């Protein structure tokens, strides 16, 4: 499997994503510059976190019009796997590849901490290695992560099984306290109806090594990867890091 990680000016998590794919998953991954008009041959594209174009105007608003997003949009419509993390999720919404919008957190503050998420649907390619209803942990780090969609869009998301993750407490309860940003219906991540484009505010790439407290993020990447699980792709790196 070959991953492509788009680098916008202001991307911050591009190097983290490349590290996870190359060293932890042990797969091929390349950086793709935002000015490219076409995508190189890749099996999945990741739009990483950060502050693309300084998040001027609105988070993700300028990046949505960058040359590479034209190519990403075309490829997504023909079925390429696209994953937007944090700022990447914001860009996908701004580009119209996912429904809804991400607004400023309800309390107006940036929040960075580990969050509990309930896996709502494991039928899509992004979540197939999780159990439905399972509680997992991944960190969040955003100032504009309050997911919003109107009632009819929400209804469609619910009925098509497009809601992938919701913020929850340690027991999996969808409480108000467990919702860090005021997202509608505690939504943390969604996919499109075709199931090939997904976006989430939490950072799976920050939850891929035991050293960093959680490895639940790795399971998301493995869901997408064609690597057989018994090969333990991270094992090589884990050994070298230990040495």
């Amino acid at each position, binding site marked *: 499997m070959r991953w492509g990680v788009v680098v916008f*000016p*202001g*991307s*911050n*998590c591009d*190097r*983290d994503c490349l*590290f*996870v794919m190359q060293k932890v998953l042990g797969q091929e991954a390349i950086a793709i*510059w935002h000015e490219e008009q076409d995508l190189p041959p890749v099996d999945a594209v990741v739009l990483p*976190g*950060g*502050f693309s*174009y*300084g*998040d*001027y105007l609105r988070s993700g608003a300028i990046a949505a019009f960058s040359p590479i997003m034209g190519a990403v949009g075309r490829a997504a419509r023909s079925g390429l796997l696209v994953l937007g993390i944090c700022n990447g999720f914001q860009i996908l919404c701004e580009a119209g590849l996912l429904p809804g919008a991400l607004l400023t957190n309800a*309390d*107006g*503050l*940036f*929040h*960075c*901490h580990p969050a509990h998420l309930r896996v709502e649907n494991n039928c899509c390619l992004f979540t197939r290695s999780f159990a439905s209803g399972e509680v997992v942990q991944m*960190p969040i*780090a955003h*100032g504009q992560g309050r997911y919003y969609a109107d009632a009819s869009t929400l209804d469609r998301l619910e009925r098509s099984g497009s809601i992938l993750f919701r913020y929850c407490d340690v027991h999996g309860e969808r409480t108000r306290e467990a919702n860090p940003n005021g997202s509608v219906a505690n939504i943390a991540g969604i996919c499109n109806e075709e199931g090939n484009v997904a976006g989430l505010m939490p*950072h799976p*790439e*920050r939850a*891929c*090594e035991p*050293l*960093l407290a959680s490895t639940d993020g790795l399971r998301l990447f493995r869901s997408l990867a064609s690597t057989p699980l018994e090969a333990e792709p991270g094992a090589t790196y884990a050994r*070298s*890091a*230990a040495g």
Partner: protein
Amino acid sequence: MTSQAERQSLAEKTGLLPEEILRIEEALGRPPNETELALFSVLWSEHCCYKNSKRELRKFPTQGPGVLVQAGEENAGALDIGDGWAVVFKIESHNHPSAVEPFQGAATGVGGILRDIYTMGARPLCFLDSLRLGEIRGEDPGVRNNRRLLRGIVGGIAHYGNCVGIPTVGGELTFDPSYDGNPLVNVFCAGVVRHDRIQKGAAAGVGNPVFVAGSRTGRDGLKGAAFASRLLGSDSREDRPAVQVGDPFMGKILMEACLELFERKGVVVGVQDMGAAGIGCSTSETAARGNVGMEIDLDRVALREPGLHAADILLSESQERMLLILQQGREREAEEVFAKWGVPLQQIGKVSSDGLLRCRIGGKAVVELPARLLTEDAPVYEREAKTSLSSSEAILVERPLGLTECRSSWMAIAGLPSLASKEWVWQQYDWMVGIGTTMGPERADAAVLRVRLEGKTKYLAFTVDGNSRYAALDPYRGGEAAVAEAVRNLAVSGARPLGVTDNLNFGDPYRPEAFGQLRGAVEGIAEACRAFGLPVTGGNVSLYNESPIGAILPSPVVAAVGQIERKEEIIPMGFQREGDRLLLLGGWGKGLSGSIYAWEVLGRRQGPAPMVDLPQEQGLCSVLRALAARGVVHSAHDLSDGGLAIALLESSLTGTGCLGAEVSLPASPTAEELLFGESQGRLLITVAEEEKKAVEEECARREIEVQSIGWVTGSWLRLEQGQDRLEIELAELGRIWKGALTELMAATPKLD
């Protein structure tokens, strides 16, 4: 030459002293023109040339086996971390700007220290910050202003740090009324670089082109350095134009462009960030360091607005700008890289041979000065110092509280803003970006980062410490204690210290008491560093921290960097396992003076500062490192602010599964002293029962006192002293400790 009366009037206009103007005239053989005088007024300010503190700073030990770049040589110091790699680090203050415009003041403080680090060729790794503010409890206008300042400062640090994608992984925040309206914002940054890629801040090669990269030059931040070298007055808000405005996005792409250009060997001859006094300072400093001159055409500087005078262009502190001296003939390569990142790059002059800084505007020469005269030959003064120690009499408590009666005091200090959890602050910082933060905020006494270096993995630890109460009682001990605590924090996290950087925050140096405090603290820091064999690799001095209500508490702040060999040696501060033995290293301690309990609960701000026994501190650190190497320590936490009471609280509330402890106290000293005293050189560690003996042997070998004081167990802290008992539920303590700051800051967000 000018007359004495003329010099006096010029002095009043420029902030220079009449004798300094005379000195300039004698060196030049003519009076300086208006533009030149403006340059001197900023470059010869305390902020730029350390004229009042330099003599004191020379007392620091700066050499050591791992020192690659020592203090004063470059923009930041560099220490070896093995395998051909170095850690580059420095701390810097942005106190005055944060007082008048907290959000931008703090944000540009982050931007400034960031540029100092990557100017060295290093990829920045993390930030830490040391903040001091006035009282935030209550509804007085001053108190509400302090809350507004805190909200702005934390917001500004988050704004800049998060956007540039460098994690803010730790720090400290304490409160005292002396910081009312004069907050301290000290920001530390560290980065890593291969030895052979360390960049120089010196110009070289006659004829080589000189470029400005980054933002356009505007009027913002004009004479900010001079502003920082004055007292804050009631009219300081009028100085808001002296505060720069940051653009973290430009900061990020300028950093990425510079780091990418540095990868192309031989293109960049010298590089210097533009901070205080902008183009004027960076050109004269690089020229002076390289023993060359520079010819600058000010008409070529890209301006934000027309109509700037030569002095404005030279002294503007517009943010996100770098000065680059390139190898002639390779300009195209730089232009390609900067065009890729969308960062403006403009040639403004070239390197000359005669040691003079020459600037022209509109075809007319406006500056012709020896570069060294502006920088290295700036005046250095010996100021009058007066040592004033607090009374040496220990605090006597007439009717000491019994253990059971200490309950409400314990609750009270757990909720003090200075001691309460700083979650409200650090959750606003992205402390994880870079996926290296192994021990983030409130996980260990130091922040620990995993660093990936072309196939090698290293673990680095960082901490920033300072205790203004001790420094107020005894500046020398305050200096010693800052270093000792920083080293202790590294040791209990499993790290071996490599070196320190310091930030000296004091009052008006022309007041002998304030200067005496600076001198005492410097001598204390120097002595402690010598005892630990640590180099001071640089730092920052912030004087004139006085507002209409008076001077701040003397505030020496020390940031220390350490290294951990293997990840198995990293130690958290929270209790990890039910049934573990609780061991106290360094003894029970005695006395209350200097403690936060004495200051805040008893209202007794006097007595001697806690004694710092440097050999004992060294012994403690050796014991910890030996035990860490064997992997037997499950948790370790030093006893500092709030003594044993707060150490027990923090270890209980930050560990896995919220484990408490059972502790038996000796009959003497008093329960108050045992719980809240802050005798230095003490640690709390937990080990498996079967390792207790080995720890005791290790301690005996290094002559460190060790007591087995109890067990890790339950969901409460249960203490006994003879027949006296005290039991506190962790849930109750946790509500107070975790909630205090959040509640204060969330209560009236819009009204402050």
